[in-house]
C-alpha cells in the first residue's frame, strides 16, 4: 500500500524537480554586459551598405570616421585630430591621429580613408549611400568607370588626407559624421568579400564577437580603443520583435535600456517606481502628411493649404499622440532651425472655416482623394482622424492600407494623392530636411516623395548648400523653408520625442538626437 502511494506521487515529484531544474529567469546574463533590445535584425554592418537606424547605431560602436558629432551637435575630431577648410570652401585637409588601430592591430592611415570612401563610390559596391560623396571632385567619372581613382580623394602622407569638392558644399563636414563615412580595413574586405558585414572590423570602442541573426549580437569592449576607456565589458543586443515581450523582459531586468514602445509609454509614465528612469529627448525628425503636388488635385497649392487648415494638429498631438512630440511648423526640426518663421507660420493654424472657404471658392467640394498608409495600428488610427477632419470641409478621403514594401514602392512611384511618412536626420544640418525632401532633383525614391517642384526653392536650397558663411546659408534656408510652408506640399505634423527607460543600475545613459552619436563609452553598470 505504501509502495503504491509512493509510485503515484513520484511522477508529480519528478515533474516538480524537473521544473525547478529548468526554471529560473534572470540568471542568464553575462556579467558586465549591457543589454539592449532591437525589434528587428539589423540589415548589414558594412558601413557602405547601411541604410537602417539599428545598423547605423551598432556600426557607430564598431567604427569611427574622420569627424563626429559632439553633444551640442557641433563637429568634433574623431580619427582626424584637426582639419582645415580652404577659403574657397573646396579643400578639406584632415590630419589624422597617430596610433589609431583597427581591431586586428594595424594602424589607420590616410590610405584607408581613400580606400573606404572610394569603395562607397565604386560601381561594384552598389552602395545606396553614394550620395554622401557625389559632390567630391572626380566622383562622377569614377562611378561611371572613366577613372581609376577619385581625383578628389588625395593622400598627402600617411597621416594627412585631403578631400576636394567640385563646388563649395556647406553640409559636407556634417555628412562625414554618418555611418557610411567610417573607415574600414581593405585587407578584411578582401578577405571576407560579401561577408564583411558579418566580420566588421573597425576602430571603434567595441568589437563584434558574435552575430546570430534574428537572435542577438554580442559586442565586446575594445581595450585598444583610442578615445577613452570603455567601462562596460560589452553590449548584447537582443532581437525581440514583439513589444510586449520586450517590456516583460525589461520588467524582469533582462533588458537594461529599452526604447519605450508607444503602447507602454503611459504605463511607465504613470508608475512612480519607474517614471524617474524615463529619459526623453527631442528627436531630429519630422512627421508629415505628404500630398502629391505634381498632379491633380494636389497640384493646386490652395487645396493643399486648405488641407493644412482643416486638420487640428495641436489637438491630435495632445490627445492622440499623448504629447510625445513638438508641433511642427515647417519641415526643419525646431532644434536645427536657427531662424524665425513666425510670419509664415500663420498659414498653418487650424481654421476649418477658411479651409471650407478655399474649397468652395475653388469648386473642389466633394473631391475624392486616396490616402495611402501602412498597416501600423498607430497610423491606421491617425488616418481615420485625418479622414474625419477632411470630410468636414468637403474632401472625401479614401484610405488605402498597404503592407510596408508595397507602400514604399507606391509612394516612391507617386501613386497616392496623400501619404503618411516621417523623415529622420542623418546629419544635423537644415539642408538634410530641405534638399532631399523638396529639391526637384530628388523626386520619388531620392526623398522628394511629395513630388514638389519649385524652381525658386531649388535655387535657394542650392545657394544655401554652396554658401560658406553660416549666416548666408541660414538666410537661404529660411527663404526656402518659408516658401515651402506657404506652398504646403506637406501638412507638417510633429517632431517626435524619443523615450527610453533604463534600469536603476544604469548610469550615464542619455539619448542622442542622432543615433550614431552614441558610442557606448559613457554608460556604466552599477549593481
Amino acid at each position, binding site marked *: 500500500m505504501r509502495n503504491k502511494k509512493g509510485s503515484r506521487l513520484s511522477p508529480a515529484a519528478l515533474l516538480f524537480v524537473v521544473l525547478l531544474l529548468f526554471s529560473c*529567469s534572470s540568471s542568464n546574463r553575462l556579467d558586465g554586459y549591457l543589454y539592449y533590445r532591437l525589434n528587428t535584425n539589423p540589415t*548589414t554592418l558594412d558601413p557602405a551598405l547601411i541604410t537602417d537606424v539599428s545598423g547605423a547605431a551598432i556600426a557607430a560602436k564598431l567604427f569611427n570616421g574622420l569627424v563626429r558629432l559632439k553633444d551640442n551637435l557641433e563637429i568634433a575630431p574623431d580619427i582626424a585630430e584637426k582639419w582645415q577648410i580652404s577659403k574657397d570652401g573646396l579643400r578639406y585637409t584632415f590630419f589624422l591621429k597617430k596610433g589609431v588601430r583597427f581591431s586586428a592591430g594595424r594602424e589607420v592611415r590616410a590610405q584607408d580613408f581613400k580606400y573606404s570612401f572610394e569603395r562607397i563610390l565604386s560601381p561594384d559596391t552598389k552602395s545606396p549611400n553614394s*550620395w554622401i560623396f557625389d559632390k567630391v571632385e572626380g566622383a562622377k567619372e569614377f562611378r561611371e568607370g572613366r577613372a581609376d581613382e577619385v581625383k578628389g580623394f588625395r593622400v598627402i602622407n600617411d597621416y594627412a588626407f585631403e578631400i576636394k569638392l567640385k563646388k563649395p558644399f556647406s553640409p559636407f563636414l556634417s555628412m562625414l559624421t554618418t555611418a557610411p563615412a567610417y573607415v574600414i580595413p581593405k585587407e578584411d574586405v578582401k578577405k571576407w568579400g560579401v561577408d564583411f558585414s558579418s566580420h566588421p572590423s573597425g576602430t571603434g570602442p567595441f568589437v563584434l564577437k558574435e552575430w546570430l541573426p534574428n537572435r542577438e549580437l554580442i559586442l565586446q569592449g575594445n581595450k585598444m580603443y583610442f578615445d577613452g576607456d570603455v567601462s562596460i565589458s560589452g553590449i548584447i543586443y537582443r532581437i525581440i520583435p514583439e513589444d510586449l515581450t520586450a517590456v516583460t523582459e525589461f520588467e524582469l531586468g533582462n533588458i537594461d535600456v529599452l526604447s519605450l514602445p508607444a503602447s507602454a509609454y503611459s504605463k511607465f509614465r504613470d508608475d512612480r517606481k519607474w517614471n524617474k528612469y524615463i529619459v526623453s529627448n527631442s528627436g531630429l525628425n519630422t512627421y508629415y502628411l505628404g500630398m502629391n503636388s505634381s498632379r491633380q488635385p494636389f497640384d493646386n497649392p490652395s487645396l493643399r493649404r486648405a488641407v493644412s487648415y482643416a486638420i487640428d494638429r495641436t489637438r491630435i498631438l495632445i490627445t492622440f499622440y499623448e504629447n510625445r512630440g513638438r508641433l511642427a511648423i515647417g519641415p526643419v526640426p525646431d532644434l536645427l532651425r536657427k531662424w524665425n518663421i513666425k510670419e509664415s507660420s500663420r498659414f498653418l493654424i487650424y481654421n476649418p472655416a477658411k479651409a471650407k472657404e478655399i474649397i468652395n471658392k475653388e469648386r473642389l467640394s466633394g473631391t475624392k482623394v486616396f490616402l495611402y498608409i501602412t498597416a501600423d495600428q498607430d497610423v491606421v488610427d491617425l488616418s481615420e482622424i485625418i479622414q474625419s477632419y477632411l470630410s468636414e470641409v468637403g474632401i472625401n478621403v479614401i484610405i488605402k492600407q498597404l503592407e510596408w514594401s508595397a507602400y514604399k514602392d507606391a509612394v516612391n512611384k507617386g501613386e497616392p494623392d496623400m501619404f503618411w511618412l516621417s523623415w529622420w536626420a542623418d546629419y544635423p544640418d537644415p539642408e538634410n530636411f530641405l534638399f532631399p525632401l523638396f529639391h526637384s532633383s530628388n523626386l520619388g525614391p*531620392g526623398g522628394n516623395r511629395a513630388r514638389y517642384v519649385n524652381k525658386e526653392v531649388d535655387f535657394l536650397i542650392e545657394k544655401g548648400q554652396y554658401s560658406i558663411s553660416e549666416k548666408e546659408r541660414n538666410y537661404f534656408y529660411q527663404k526656402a523653408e518659408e516658401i515651402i510652408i506657404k506652398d504646403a506640399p506637406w501638412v507638417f505634423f510633429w517632431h517626435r520625442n524619443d523615450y527610453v527607460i533604463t534600469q536603476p543600475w544604469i548610469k550615464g545613459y542619455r539619448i542622442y538626437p542622432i543615433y550614431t552619436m552614441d558610442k557606448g563609452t559613457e554608460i556604466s553598470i552599477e549593481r
Partner: protein
Amino acid sequence: MGVDIKAYILKRLLLLIPLLLGITLLTFSLLKALPGDPVQGFVGERASPEIIESIRKEIGADKSFISQYAGYLKLLITGDFGRSYYTNRDVLTDIAMKFPNTMKLAFGAMFIAIPLGITIGYISAYRRGGFLERFMNIVSITGLSIPVFWSGIMIMLIFGLELKLFPPSGTGDIRFLVLPAVVLSIPAMATLARVTRTTVIDILGMPYINTAVAKGLPSLKISIIHVLKNAIIPIVTIIGLDFGSYLNGAVVTETIFGWDGIGRFTMEGIIKRDYPVIMGCIISGTVIFVVVNLITDVIYHYLDPRIRLHDKER
C-alpha cells in the same frame, strides 16, 4: 517486402522533383505578381535612380519572368539558394541554422501534446456522459478555439513575468523552449484529444472488444492492445500533419517568444520581399512536409500491415 518499401520511398522522393518544380513556379509567379519592389526596401531613403537600376540588374529584376525563373532553377540545381537581398547572407546557411530550433520547438510541442492529447481523449471516451468527459471536452474545445497569440501572451505573462519560472523569450536551452512549446502544443493536443475520443468510442463498440471483455482480459490490456492499436492510425495522421506544419515554423509563437526559427525567418522574408529567403523557405518547407508525410505513410505500414503502400500499382 523490404525491397518494396525502399522502391516506394524512392518513388515518392522522385515525385518531389515535379512537385518542387510546380511549387517554385507557383511561388515565383505569385511573388512577382505582388505589389512592392524589394530593391526600394533595402536601398534606404536617398538612393539615386542609377544605383537602384544597377541593383535591379544585379538581382536580375530587369529580366523577363521566364529568364528570371530559369536563372533561379539553374542556381537551385547547384544547391545554391542564393543570398538574402537584405543581409547578403547565404540563405541555405541561415535555414540550416534556424531549422534545428524549429525542430526543437516542434518536438517539444509534440512531446507535450501527444501524451496529454491521447490521455484526455481516452478519458473522455471511457467516461462518457460523466463529469470528467464534460470537463475534458471543455479543455479540448478551449484548446482548439484559443488563438495562439492570446494564449502565448498569457502564458508568457503568467509563467515568465509573474511566477518567474521560465525566461519569457529567447532562443537557447530547454528553459527557453518550455513556454513556446507549451503554447504550440495546445491546439495539437486539443485536436488529438478529439480525434482520439471519437476513434476510441467507435472502437469500444466493436464486437472484438466485447470478445476481449468476455474472455476476461484485464481492462488495461484491452485499452492498450485492442483499443490503442486500432485507434493509432488516425492519431498518427494528426501527429504527422501537425508535426509537418510545425516543422515549417510557427510564426506567431516564434514572434511572441523571440524564438529564432524558420517561421519568423519566412515571415520577415515575406514582409521585406526578400525573394531568395521566401523561395528558400518554401522549398525546404515542401521537402520537409513531403518527407514527414512519407515517414507517416511508412509508419502506417508497420502499424497496420493491412495498409499497402502501393495499392494503386496492383
